[in-house]
């Protein structure tokens, strides 16, 4: 059963790749900077935040700014997949009502679109780090590349799960914004991990999958080190757990989604 579901996804690959590409095309249509906005947006935000925070928290801006940028880039992907993903089925209702493609292709489209944005945005991060901390460059940077498949494999089941629920309960996308803000607030995304540790909130770092996910980029780029096995263990654990939940939920919900559109 799982096999035939994924065969269906594979068979429709031209379709969802096309959908993702057309999303990207329409996103930047008729804007002057076009695709450059994926670079400008996080960079501008980083400049602003790091200026304020480095003065506020007395942190040297040189190391702090790339820290923030890495947080923004990854977090933007997670947030865009969660909010956009939860609306994936509702958005694709015309397709769902006419063709029985596996529904996960519509969340895959959202994840794929945002993955391209993430790829472009990380270019900005890499260039920044190369200029500001060239001494960090080395083999561990290869590990940073694993962030792309890992974060995609985390967010695909997540957004699929959210899409099943959001199709039935349309309040979810609104609630999502609130949930994401809460998650952002308790995670070392913009705030440094040591700020949490100083406040005796170690558990928000050590048991926080978001921290471990971000370490996959931060350890190599910002510290010139390999991510730890624990970092990867948390990420893979998260992938397995979320996939299982999405699968169990999908077995019950997949066929019924069409009635709720």
């Amino acid at each position: 059963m799982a096999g035939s579901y994924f065969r269906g996804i594979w068979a429709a690959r031209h379709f969802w790749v096309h959908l993702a590409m057309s999303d990207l095309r329409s996103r930047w249509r008729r804007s002057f900077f076009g695709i450059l906005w994926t670079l400008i947006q996080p960079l501008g935000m980083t400049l602003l935040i790091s200026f304020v925070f480095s003065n506020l928290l007395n942190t040297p801006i040189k190391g702090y700014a790339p820290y923030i940028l890495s947080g923004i880039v990854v977090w933007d992907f997670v947030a865009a997949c969660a909010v956009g993903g939860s609306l994936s089925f509702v958005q694709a209702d015309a397709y769902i009502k006419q063709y029985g493609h596996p529904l996960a292709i519509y969340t895959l489209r959202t994840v794929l679109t945002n993955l391209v944005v993430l790829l472009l945005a990380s270019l900005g991060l890499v260039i920044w780090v190369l200029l500001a901390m060239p001494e960090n460059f080395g083999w561990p940077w290869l590990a940073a590349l694993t962030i792309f498949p890992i974060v995609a494999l985390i967010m695909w089941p997540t957004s699929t799960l959210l899409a099943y629920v959001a199709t039935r309960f349309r309040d979810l996308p609104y609630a999502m914004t609130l949930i994401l803000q809460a998650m952002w607030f308790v995670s070392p995304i913009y705030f440094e991990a040591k700020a949490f540790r100083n406040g005796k909130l170690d558990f928000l770092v050590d048991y926080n999958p978001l921290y471990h996910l971000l370490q996959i980029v931060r350890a190599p780029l910002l510290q010139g080190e390999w991510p730890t096995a624990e970092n990867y263990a948390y990420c893979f654990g998260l992938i397995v757990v979320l996939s299982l939940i999405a699968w169990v939920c999908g077995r019950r919900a997949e066929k019924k989604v069409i009635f709720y559109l």
Partner: protein
Amino acid sequence: MSTLISLKNVDLCYASTAFKERSLKTALAKLFSVGKEKVEVQDIKALKNVSVDISSGERVGLLGHNGAGKSTFLKVVAGLYPISAGTRSVQGIVRSMFDLSLGFEPDATGRENILYRGLLLGLTPKFMRGIEDEVVAFADLGEFIDYPIKTYSAGMLVRLAFAITTAVGGDVLLLDEVIGAGDANFMVKAKQRIRELIENSEVLLLASHDFVTLRATCERGLVFHHGELRFDGPMEESITTYKRLNGLA
């Protein structure tokens, strides 16, 4: 002749939770408006105990009043709706034309949209390039094929959609009241096309209110009435039954 479509004692139920208003507003309104009885929304049984066998080469017309279950029946055959009871078995590739503007990108040209719609149907870009010229010729839109399709008229869209959907073939073709939208010239071609598809031993299911089209294209008729299949037989008798059931004759 092999049986392509086989439905046995099929029920289909739309759960009322799917369309009942569940917003906070209604919940609050309910609290404060005592005494006012609102119409209770109930589950809809769209298909009741429907059993049909359809073999290859058959052209079947679906008749029935609005809401009789024609479209639901087509969507069950297409595998879009999960049935509540009974068994469904459909062999072969199903091609459906329910929503014609679907899968079209308004800013892309007709030619690009041929590719996009093909991808939606699960075909490969390579295959679509192979049949592109044939589709363009059949749709016969002249220079408009290279214009963005937001400049098209409704009839032109139908022609393009029909040309693509029927060009890629399939074992089971499902049409829902779309056939009548082209102009007279195109209708002749469309009918010719459908005849060719049938000759390649494929099944056509056509839901329509147009007796002329039904008589011309289908020899077998299914009459639906409030979700029940009331008659299954030759088209002429189906039309008579339909008229009798709806008090038209």
